[in-house]
């Protein structure tokens, strides 16, 4: 495998310009929802609402105000996390979801049949069906651009370098330095997904956050779907076993009753 590559997103310098959203749409030629005719969401300046089949980048706006002018406005560009241990890849029954030589997670559009198992498996709610293709689609970390040595469209467009692209080996120490710098200024910063011993083996698109993970719409401890496999299958077998035994016992009782009453007139 070539080196693992991905994103480090420093949300403290994000300005909420959504250049990443538009650059992604432009490069991947994704359609606008309903041709661009929509309703205001009412959720601050976020009208994209969530990542889905035609929105592979989504800028979140989190207003934290105690009173007029008293507070802060957090902004964060959400994207597929390209998990080192990916739930979507785990469950995909067609083998459409693969891990590339860049350690990114990509859905092969010509293989996917739209069963939607990956949508339910992703702990972050990243994937959705693209209504145009009928298949599941998400950020590819611009696999086609990476293959020719370019950086992804979103990180190239980001004017403040909030989205930084590079090898994971160089992004992680850079991120830690930034966390230390912010902490020295009294800002409660932490990294989300930068720990290879952490949830999902680390995320190849990891974040610097200044509040709790859930505030940004991120699960605190994301897990793989297969965590439930053994227990769930085991209990099913148990249930079937109990029912099988009950059925057999019933049959035996019936036979016994029959044998016992065969001398009678009934």
């Amino acid at each position, binding site marked *: 495998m070539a080196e693992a590559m991905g994103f480090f997103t420093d949300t403290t310098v994000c300005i909420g*310009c959504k250049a990443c959203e*538009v650059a992604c749409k432009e490069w991947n030629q994704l359609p606008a929802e309903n041709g661009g*005719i929509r309703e205001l969401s009412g959720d*601050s300046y976020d009208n*994209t609402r969530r990542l889905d089949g035609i929105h592979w980048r989504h800028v979140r706006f989190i207003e934290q105000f105690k009173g*007029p002018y*008293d507070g802060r406005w957090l902004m964060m560009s959400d994207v597929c996390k390209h998990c080192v241990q990916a739930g979507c890849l785990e469950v995909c029954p067609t083998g459409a979801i693969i891990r590339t030589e860049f350690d990114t997670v990509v859905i092969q559009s010509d293989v996917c049949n739209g069963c939607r198992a990956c949508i339910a498996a992703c702990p972050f709610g990243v994937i959705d069906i693209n209504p145009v293709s009928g298949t599941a689609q998400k950020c590819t970390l611009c696999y086609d651009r990476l293959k020719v040595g370019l950086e992804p469209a979103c990180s190239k467009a980001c004017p403040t370098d909030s989205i930084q692209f590079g090898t994971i080996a160089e992004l992680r120490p850079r991120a830690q330095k930034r966390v230390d710098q912010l902490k020295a200024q009294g800002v409660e910063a932490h990294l989300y997904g930068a720990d290879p011993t952490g949830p999902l083996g680390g995320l190849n698109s990891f974040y610097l956050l200044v509040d709790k993970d859930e505030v940004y719409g991120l699960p605190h401890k994301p897990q793989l779907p297969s965590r439930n496999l053994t227990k769930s299958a085991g209990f099913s077998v148990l249930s079937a076993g109990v029912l099988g035994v009950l059925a057999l016992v019933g049959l035996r009782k019936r036979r016994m009753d029959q044998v016992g009453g065969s001398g009678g007139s009934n």
Partner: protein
Amino acid sequence: MPGAHLKWGWAWPANRRNIYNRASADLNGNPWSERKRWVWWDPHFVNPPDPKTGKPIPPGKWVGYDVPDFTLTMPPSHKGKPDGIIMEPLSGTDAYIMRPEGKGWIYVPAGLVDGPFPTHYEPHESPVQNLLYPKQQSSPVHKVWSQGKPWNQLAAVGDPKFPYVITTYRLTEHYLAGAMSRWLPWLSELQPELFIELGKGLAKEKGINNLDYVIITTPRSHVRAKALVTDRIGVLKVAGKTIHHVGMPWHWGWMGLSTGDVVNDLTAWVGDPNVSIHEGKAFVCNVEKA
């Protein structure tokens, strides 16, 4: 944090953040104060030879947090050529390099109709008296078109029919009046509808919930928009009064994928004395649930 953060964004043309920043250093090229250190002369800097002529350049360079707005290797002691051409008359202390004589002007004899010093005037519509000049509320040389006509009524100071201060502004996603941006699907879906931003206090007072339609009225016109209730905008405490502040982006019009009322219809036909820009950033209005 100190510094110009030159890697954060880009300022055309050379990523210089402060025009005429040679002026941040004194006549000898040292910062006027440590606290305001910005651009300064480093006399020991070893310069490579001139790439065009190959001639050696004496040591010394303007350095600093910002990109210097000055000839990089011109020392503060340099004397200009009085009969030179283009930039030759400028000396090492002439920070205002785009002026012919290299000096900053406090007062101009021609071109501007107001000056020489900034002062405070209230906008043509204001909820409060001008505390600095009780007898001169707003700029005496402001342009007013159709003065007194019915379509250009101005609210009196503190008119209770228009108790809120309104400002208009731009959004990232749309451009000017939106004639170009509101036809683009990718931009229209990012900001699909006109809205007014108002504080939670005002919303509670008028019974307005997030996304309710409201009518915004000024003495000129009225528009309808959805309410975006947020504490990013709020109340001003001026002259002992608590005044609600509301804001609207002015990108909308009636054609395109994304349509809405024209917010500039609310403004008065009052303009800047020099460049005639209409006063769309500060006027008064009323807001009611639709």
